[in-house]
C-alpha cells in the first residue's frame, strides 16, 4: 500500500456530545454523553487507518463524524483541505460521492423489500449517474462481479444471500460511486469465522485495485493488525495512542494498549496454561461522566498523582520510542515485554 503523505481527511479537535435530557413537558438537558471528546486525526491518501477500542470508546461515532453522517458539536473536519464540518445540501451530497461507508450488520443495513440490483443501483440513481435502466443494470452487474457476487443474482432479495454475501452487497453499494475514502465499521464482526477472511481479503483487494483510502473500525486487534498501516487506539472519546501498526504491536506505549494486547487470546495453547496476564480491573467508566485528567487513571496499573491532576497530551515521547501517545508514564520496553502475548513477543512484532 503506497500511502502518500498527502492528507485527504483530517479531524481537528473534534467533539460530539449527545445530550441527555429529562422531563416530559419541559425537556431539559441534564448532561451529555461525550462520545468523542477532542480528537485530532489525519488520514493519508491510500493508507488503511485502523481505529480500535472497546464498546463505548467513540470509534463508531468518529467514523460517522468523518463522513458527516453526524454533525460535530465542535471542531473541524477537513476533506481535501475544505471544511466539511457544517456543510449541507449540495456540497454534502457531493461529499457522499467521495466518502462511503460499509456497516457492521449486513442484515439490518439492507432493505429487505428491495432487490439487490435496486439496492446497489440506488447511489447511482441518487447522483444521476448511469442514465437509462440498461446502462444501470450493466454497471450494477459489473459491481456485483467486482465484489465476488454472481451477477445473475441481480433480481434476488437480501434474504436469499448468506451473511458474507450480504456484506459483499454492502461493499458493492459503497463502491458504486467510486469513492476516494471507504469507511468500514466492524465489517466482519457479525460474520462466521470462516467467512470473515473472505470479506477482509475483498476489502484489501479493492483497496489495491481502486486506490481506496480505508478506515477500518474494529474491536478485534488481530484484524486491525492484519489490515492496517496505522492504528489509533481510542478510550472514552479520546485517542490514547496513534502509531504505525508495526510500532503499536511491537512497542505499545500506552498502558491501555498494553492491556488490550495482553488480553487477546492467541490460538496457540501456552506452555503454561495459566499465563500471567496484565488484566485491567473494572469496566470502562461511563462516557457521560468520564474521569478527570487522564481518563484511563481509574483502571491504570501505573497511575501516579500527576495523572489525576493533569491531562496528558497526545505526543511523541522524548525517548523517541513508538508513535504518539497520551500518557505521562508510558510503558518501558521491559514492561512491554511482560505484556505482549508470548507468540507476539517472539516475533518481535
Amino acid at each position, binding site marked *: 500500500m503506497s500511502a502518500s503523505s498527502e492528507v485527504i481527511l483530517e479531524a481537528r479537535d473534534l467533539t460530539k456530545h449527545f445530550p441527555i435530557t429529562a422531563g416530559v413537558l419541559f425537556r431539559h438537558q441534564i448532561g451529555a454523553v461525550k462520545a468523542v471528546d477532542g480528537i485530532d486525526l489525519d488520514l493519508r491518501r491510500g493508507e488503511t487507518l485502523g481505529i480500535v477500542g472497546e464498546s463505548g470508546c467513540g470509534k463508531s461515532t468518529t467514523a460517522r463524524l468523518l463522513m458527516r453522517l453526524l454533525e460535530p458539536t465542535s471542531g473541524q473536519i477537513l476533506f481535501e483541505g475544505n471544511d466539511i464540518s457544517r456543510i449541507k445540501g449540495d456540497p454534502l451530497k457531493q461529499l457522499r460521492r467521495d466518502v462511503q461507508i460499509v456497516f457492521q450488520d449486513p442484515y439490518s443495513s439492507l432493505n429487505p423489500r428491495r432487490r439487490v440490483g435496486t439496492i446497489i443501483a440506488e447511489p447511482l440513481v441518487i447522483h444521476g449517474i448511469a442514465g437509462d435502466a440498461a446502462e444501470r443494470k450493466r454497471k450494477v452487474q459489473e459491481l456485483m462481479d467486482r465484489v465476488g457476487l454472481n451477477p445473475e443474482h441481480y433480481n434476488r432479495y437480501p434474504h436469499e444471500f448468506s451473511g458474507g454475501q450480504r456484506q459483499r452487497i454492502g461493499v458493492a453499494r459503497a463502491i458504486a460511486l467510486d469513492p476516494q475514502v471507504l469507511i468500514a465499521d466492524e465489517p466482519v464482526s457479525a460474520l462466521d469465522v470462516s467467512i*470473515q477472511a473472505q470479506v477482509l481479503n475483498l476489502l484489501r483487494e479493492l483497496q489495491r485495485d481502486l486506490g481506496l483510502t480505508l478506515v477500518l473500525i474494529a474491536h478485534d486487534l488481530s484484524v486491525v493488525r492484519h489490515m492496517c498501516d496505522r492504528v489509533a487506539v481510542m478510550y472514552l472519546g479520546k485517542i490514547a495512542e496513534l502509531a504505525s501498526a508495526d510500532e503499536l504491536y511491537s512497542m505499545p506505549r500506552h498502558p491501555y494498549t498494553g492491556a488490550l494486547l495482553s488480553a487477546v487470546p*492467541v490460538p*496457540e495453547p501456552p506452555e503454561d496454561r495459566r499465563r500471567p496476564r496484565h488484566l485491567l480491573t473494572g469496566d470502562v467508566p461511563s462516557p457521560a461522566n468520564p474521569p478527570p485528567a487522564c481518563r484511563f487513571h481509574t483502571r491504570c496499573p501505573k497511575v501516579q498523582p500527576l495523572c489525576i491532576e493533569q491531562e496528558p497530551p497526545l505526543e511523541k515521547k522524548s525517548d523517541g520510542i513508538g508513535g504518539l501517545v497520551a500518557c505521562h508514564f508510558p510503558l518501558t520496553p521491559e514492561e512491554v515485554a511482560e505484556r505482549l502475548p508470548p507468540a507476539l513477543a517472539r516475533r518481535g512484532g
Partner: protein
Amino acid sequence: MTETPLLEVEDLHVSFSTDDGVVKAVDGASYSVAAGKTLGIVGESGSGKSVSSLTALGLTKGRNTTISGRMLFAGRDLLALDSSEIRQVRGNDLAMIFQDPLSALHPFYTIGNQLIEAVRAHQDVSKAAARARALDLLELVGIPDPAARLDRYPHEFSGGMRQRVMIAMALLNEPKLLIADEPTTALDVTVQAQILTLLQDLQDRLGMAIVIITHDLGVVAEMADDIAVMYAGRIVERAPGRELFAHPQHPYTWGLLKSIPRLDNPRGEDLTPIPGRPPSLINRPSGCHFHPRCPYVRDEHRRVDPRMQSVGGDTPHEVACLLPAQTRSAVWQALSRGDSVQQAQRVARDSARAASNTSESASAAADEQQEVQP
C-alpha cells in the same frame, strides 16, 4: 483417558421437524468430559455445538424434536430422565451460562431474588441462608460491594458484571459440570480476559468440569484441555488442546486456523478463507459433509461418509477424514510453513500419487469406511 468420564455423550442425534423439512442439528456426536477438566467445543453458527449442550439440560425437548443416543452424566442417562428428574439435575449438578447475560436474567427481579430462588429450588434452606449463600457467591465471582449489589436489577450492571452474576448463579449449588455457551462473545476483550481468568480460577478452587462452547480458537486454546471441532452437526476432529494446534488433521480445522488473522503471523499476508459457506442442515451434502468446501476433495469423498478414527500415536487424537494419514501430515506441513492452498493441493496430489505407487492404500483407506446408504 483411563478415568471414567463425568459426562459421556454417545452417538447423539437431535433433529427438529420444521415446515421446510427435518433439521438435523446434531447428527451423531460423541464426546466426553472428565471430572475437573475442560472440553472446548469449536464450531461456526449452525454446527450444532449449542444444541448438543442444551439437550444435556433437557432444554430441546418438544413435540417437534427427535432425540436419540445416550448422554451419561455420572452414570445416569440424561436423555432417559423425565422432566421432574431433569429439573433435579439442572442447576444443581449441571449448570449452564449463556452468551447474552442480559436476556438470560429476568429484568423485573433483583439479582438477589433470582439467586435466592435458584438456591431454594434445590436446597431446603431458609431465605436468610439462601441470601447468605448468594452473597458468598457474588463475592467469589468478584463483584464489588456484593451486599448492596444484591438488591439491584440486572440493568444496573455492566455486561461483564452481568456475566459474573450468571456465573455466580450457575455455581450456587456447586455443580460438577458447568456448560459455558459462548460466555464471552458479547464482551469486550479486556472484560473477556477477566471472565476467562475467573472461570479458570473457579475451576481450580471448586474442581468442576467445564464445557466451553465457542467459535473463537483463541479462547479454546487458553481454556481447554481437550478440543472437539464440530461441523454440520458432527464432531470432525477431537484431540488434546496442544496436540490439536500442533498437528491438526481435518481440512476444516486447517481452514479455521488459516482464515483468522493472528497476532503472531507476519503482517500483510492474504488470509486463506474457507470457500463457500456452511451447509444447510436440512439438505446435507452426501459423503463427507465438508466435501463441497474442501480443497483436497477426491471423488470417493462425495460418496463415502467418514467415521471418527484414531490418528495413531500416543495422544488420543481422532479425526473423520478420508484423506490418507501421510497426505494429511504433508498438507499440514505445507500449510503451516505458509504455502498457499494451491501449493498445498499440489502436495496432496503428489502424496496421493506416491501412495498409490507403493500400494493401493489411498483407496483401501476409503474402502474401510462405510458406504452411504442411497
